[in-house]
């Protein structure tokens, strides 16, 4: 993984074996993290079984649970696809939070005016475009700096993220502040003007947009020339130049698309769930999804179940934490554990030969005077 996107190993094992080994590789870190999480719970004097029970009930089983989960899933799928597109090209777009919050602010801020001027479908589409343009636009400066001067995009996207979040707050507290509330927030758009929902549920059509982005993302990345170019750039930037790819163009466009997808996620969230936006609001999907995207080995399809898992954690986590008297940050710790276990799971390799020598390799690698 040192030159960009992680490799997508293909083993010679039979298809069935390959599927199970992939499942194991993905589930392993998750289960390990849950186990360590249980330990921490015990140390904090809570009952892990009760906690996890509450978690899964509130997040998945109850009616409000699974509806809430699917609603939560919509923006996650879009953000996840946005990350995958960038990471496959070896571009570390870490500024997801800033892109999300700023796009949300624009969408929420402009929504009252837009929705009262045009028809509902036109308005929704327009606002979605606004979200995409803002999200994509916010990546342009880091993209250009990377493409032209090779400036590390981890720093630049992160800086832009902080700036974006503060800018969003300024806008909400300033020009778009609604006069009707004491707490700073934008004007609200009535439910009837928001994204339509599936009959009888709280699930809005944003989930369809999310699933579509996953499918299109998968298709473009795996079956299309555009995706192949991205992959080449991510796997070996020098080979990309050698192959005659327009590297600068690919960098800028990929960044823009990544940001646009994240901006669309913000639009979907605002227009599907809230209808307005409070100042200082930041759901913080970005950093957490980062782990899941890698766990899915940058495959849009594999990301879906993992994002769903995260959604369950989120929806159920609030409830479970509340019941156990814990802060929600415990969930963040769980996710951090998943990420660290993921890094360890890389060691497990993919081929049987590598796994056979695992113990010897582990010992050998730990020896500072080692050699391959």
């Amino acid at each position, binding site marked *: *993984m*040192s030159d960009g996107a*992680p490799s997508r190993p293909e083993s010679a094992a039979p298809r069935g074996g390959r599927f199970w080994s992939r499942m194991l590789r993905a589930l392993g870190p998750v289960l390990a993290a849950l186990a360590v999480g249980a330990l921490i719970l015990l140390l*904090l004097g809570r009952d892990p079984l009760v906690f996890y029970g509450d978690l899964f009930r509130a997040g998945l089983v109850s009616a409000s649970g699974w509806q809430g989960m699917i609603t939560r899933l919509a923006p996650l799928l879009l953000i996840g696809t946005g990350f995958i597109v960038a990471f496959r090209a070896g571009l*570390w777009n*870490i500024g997801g939070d800033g892109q999300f919050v700023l796009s949300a602010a624009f969408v929420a801020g402009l929504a009252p005016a837009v929705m009262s001027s045009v028809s509902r479908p036109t308005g929704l589409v327009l606002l979605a475009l606004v979200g995409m343009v803002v999200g994509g636009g916010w990546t342009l*400066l880091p993209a250009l*700096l990377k493409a032209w*001067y090779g*400036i*590390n995009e*981890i*720093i*630049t996207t*992160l*800086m*832009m993220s*902080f*700036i974006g979040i*503060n*800018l969003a*707050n*300024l806008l909400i*507290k300033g020009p778009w502040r609604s006069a009707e509330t004491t707490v700073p927030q934008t004007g609200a758009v009535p439910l009837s003007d928001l994204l339509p929902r599936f009959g009888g549920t709280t699930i809005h059509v944003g989930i369809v947009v999310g699933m579509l982005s996953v499918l299109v993302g998968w298709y473009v990345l795996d079956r299309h020339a555009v995706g192949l170019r991205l992959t080449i750039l991510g796997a070996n930037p020098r080979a990309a130049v050698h192959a005659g790819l327009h590297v600068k163009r690919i960098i800028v466009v990929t960044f823009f698309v990544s940001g646009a997808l994240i901006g669309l996620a913000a639009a979907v969230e605002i227009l599907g769930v809230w209808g307005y936006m409070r100042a200082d609001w930041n759901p913080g999907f970005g*950093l*957490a999804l*980062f*782990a899941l995207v*890698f766990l899915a080995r940058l495959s849009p399809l594999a990301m879906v179940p993992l994002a769903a898992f995260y959604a369950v954690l989120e929806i159920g986590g609030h409830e479970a934490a509340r019941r156990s008297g*814990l*802060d929600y*940050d*415990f969930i*963040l*710790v769980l*996710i*951090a*554990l998943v*990420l*660290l276990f*993921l*890094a*360890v799971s*890389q*060691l497990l390799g993919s081929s049987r030969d590598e796994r056979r020598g695992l113990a010897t390799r582990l010992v050998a*690698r*730990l020896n*500072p*005077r*080692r*050699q*391959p």
Partner: protein
Amino acid sequence: MSELLSATFLTALVSGAILAGLPLLFAGLGELVGEQSGILGIGMEGYMLLGAYAGFNGALYGGSPWVGMLCGVVAGLAIGSVVMLLSVRLGLDQVVVGIGVILLGEGLTSLLHAVQFGASYPRLGEMNDLPIPLLSRIPVLGESVFSQPLIFWAGIALVFMVRWMLRSTRWGLDLRAAGEKPRALDAAGVSVIAVRSWAVLVSGALGGLGGAYLAVVSAGVFVAYMTNGLGFIAIVVAMLARGRPGWVLGGSLIFGLCLSVATALQVIGVDVPTDIVYMLPFLAVMVALAAFARRSYLPAALGVPYGRGER
């Protein structure tokens, strides 16, 4: 406008710059050492948060700010050894590990603080200033620069120490070789892994110290996510410093200035919206990068794990 040039404002500005810049100095030096050896220390934010939390608790329960500093260093060493194990010894991807450290630092410290103190935020007493006789009488500079607690002078001394280490010791030579051409170091019979391991530990220790300073001296309190991006600014400072500790000092003070300008303005009664205040340092970073980063120097082997025998 004449108030902008008043002694009050300038003193507040310089004091604030030092207060805000010193954590950057420690973290920046730590980052510098790591980068020179070829380690991309993305997780600095995590080091600082863990150091801040440990430092705060150390000062609170230990009764002295120095105990707090020590605890910060220890916390930094602890997380540094985890990073050392994963990134250096096992050769796992430095970016993934780094971001994991950030998340861990954020989540863990926030969680532990909530468990420990709930919604209350106990404050620490101020650290004692050490006014230097005679020099502390100079207007503006006297009250700000020359009336700093001992830890400030320790920081300045650290700059010279790091500079000396890099240039005039075997360890510094090995470090720079590990960052620029690890194959050369290996062929010369020195363990690249060992050198980088030490570098990561130093990096963690200094990052933890920076965080401890932030909580114990600058703020006097611990709040979740209190570093607020300081770790990343430290990375940028180290990047732009191009291997020179003196530049880390300069960069820290300049960014410290950005961080403290708003508070200083409030002292003379100018009210600036907090959101702009928070934005300033990051805007400054973007400007610095856009203007100067073409000339930033990063060691050739940065971010690439070392494997002997690989061409």
